[in-house]
């Protein structure tokens, strides 16, 4: 088998997954979720922070709070952490309503919130502003390749962050709809799709982790590397979420010579996660 590895490839592009959480809600539930208090320990969103936010921002913030709760490094300072948010077709319902307003009432009806709240950077910026993270924040993707691009750019940022702020981590937030919302001519939803968010708290690492079973993600420049489960770069967020949570090692094929390997949650994390889910169900 031909394993052609770039001579200059720097495999320091590796991150440990120090925490992970997912969240999902039907479109009809998101308004209520936006009004909830988003708090964990000393971290909390300012009151009414999400009142103009897009659905994917709300679910993204919710998954961040869940990841904070699941964080093994709970007491760590997050002030210099970075946020990378990969969203797929964000802002659609708000965009539809804005355009109906533009057509029917003219430009005076265009909400100024459309720019900060419905752009590709909105989820990342909301996380940075809301939780006080001063590391870089940017959005990635926009289309069906968003989660794969999110992993790639989080790993791209890792060596840079390791150099400038060695104790900082990267909060990778992937959001999207299982099925895109459908709206009628008045901008009212005619379906009730699920909006999903996954947050990975990533610690850039220079060397291979000693215990290779510790969950991690890394770029591989190996060509034709054997892999148990290969997802295409445009794989759905739901599938990625299921594979990660069921303990399946996943490889995302970015190109012929670039893959991203995502090791699954460790048995401990899986069991604490199933406890957490059971508690959530009980509470519900």
């Amino acid at each position: 088998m031909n394993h052609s590895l770039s001579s200059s490839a720097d495999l320091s592009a590796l991150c440990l997954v120090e925490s992970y959480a997912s969240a999902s809600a039907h479109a009809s539930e998101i308004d209520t979720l936006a009004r909830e208090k988003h708090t964990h320990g000393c971290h909390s969103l300012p009151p009414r922070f999400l009142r103009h936010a897009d659905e994917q921002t709300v679910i993204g913030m919710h998954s961040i709070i869940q990841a904070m709760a699941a964080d093994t490094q709970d007491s760590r300072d997050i002030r210099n952490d970075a946020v990378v948010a990969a969203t797929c077709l964000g802002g659609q319902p708000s965009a539809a309503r804005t355009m109906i307003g533009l057509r029917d009432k003219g430009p005076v009806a265009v909400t100024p919130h459309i720019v900060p709240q419905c752009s590709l950077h909105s989820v990342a910026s909301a996380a940075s502003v809301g939780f006080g993270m001063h590391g870089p924040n940017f959005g990635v993707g926009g289309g069906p390749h968003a989660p794969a691009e999110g992993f790639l750019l989080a790993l791209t940022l890792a060596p840079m962050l390791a150099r400038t702020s060695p104790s900082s981590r990267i909060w990778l937030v992937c959001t999207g709809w299982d099925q895109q919302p459908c709206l009628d001519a008045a901008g009212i939803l005619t379906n009730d799709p699920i909006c999903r968010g996954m947050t990975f708290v990533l610690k850039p690492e220079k060397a291979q982790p000693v215990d290779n079973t510790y969950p991690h993600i890394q770029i591989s420049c190996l060509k034709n590397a054997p892999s148990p489960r290969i997802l295409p770069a445009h794989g759905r967020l739901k599938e990625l979420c299921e594979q990660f949570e069921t303990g399946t090692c996943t490889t995302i094929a970015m190109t012929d010579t670039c893959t991203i390997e995502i090791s699954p949650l460790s048995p401990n994390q899986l069991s604490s996660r199933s406890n957490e889910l059971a508690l959530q169900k009980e509470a519900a």
Partner: protein
Amino acid sequence: MSSEQSSRIVISGVGASTPLGHSFSEIGDALQAGRSGIDWYDAGTFNRLQKHAAANVQEILLPTKTESFIHTEEFNKSSRIEQFMIGPAAHALADAGINPKVDSLKQKKRVGIIAGIGAEQLKNWERDFLDNGHDVFEASSQPSLVHRVAHMLGVNGPATTVAAACASSGYALALGKTWLATGLVDSCVVGGCDVLSPTALAAFHNLRALSRRDDNPQKASRPFDKNRDGFVMGEGGVFFVLERQREAEDRQCKIYGELAGIGMSSDASHMVTPCSDPVQASRAITEALADANLSPAQVDYINAHAAGTPVGDAAEAGAIRNAFGPAAAEIFVSSTKSMSGHLISAAAAFEALACLVAIERNMVPPTINLDEPDENCCLRHVPHQSISSPVHVTASNSFGFGGSNLCLILKSAA
């Protein structure tokens, strides 16, 4: 050549379609002459004002030497935002002497692409909606523009879109540098594009971010001036080819400059308003200087983000003084947005191009309309006219909604 020199990341290809011109030299001439690209813009039935001042590109032409990537008919059928990406990206590759369709097979070169576009879907939905389409009501999951263009150009490496509002294309350059430094690709097309649209004009106007000085469009963009009252929107596309110096020199292509340093931070203060505390913005500048291994006094020219907003310009002046310390009094500072308008997602790439022009011509472009500098923006300004001065090292600042701060250090590759 030392190993440090050979691993430097340089710019070996440039492509642009902007309100100030469609080539490196044409844009350079406009910047040197202090010519404004701002005029009246008619958004038709969706005008928020009777007349808007904006930096509009009248005609987007398919650049020369790009016929191996796209035919004129296909280019003409594409939407404006597609044209602003396809044309400059294809031209940058042709300028660098790279054809991924051929090189990836013959030389096993891996070419990547990173596009800074803040609201691609919004622009696509709007265009379709205004043409009586229904995409925004039942959106389908089509690949992003960057993937379609990557396919068209034969780019075989990773392709992605990044967004950090008005700093988007600067992030594309910064991340492209890292792709090269980590060996993920052999060359990378990086830049950004944006288009004027009724929704964006109305939203920024309703946000009170745009200048209301619509009686004389060429005078509307007034960064650092006491009487500034907002920015002027523009549109365009600017893309570069980044690669390692030794590979560019092997092909004997023109090297425009080195991308020597990058620095990034977030204000974490407000979704829209820039933070008046300069600490985080100046941290991005300090990190970029450290990344380039340069001291503040070694910088010859700062291309400021300064868009002409009352809060933003003063905050940036504070960040520059904070980061550069006493050296700030000696370094020329100008905002080319006074001439180009604010190209939003493409702004940072355009301003990187302005820095490369400054390096090539040993010329500092001016801030036109700077009649009365604001005392809160005390810097070594270059009002009205460009000046001749040696320029080896430049810093280009970009700040965006959501508190994104970015600084790029571009220097002469000699």
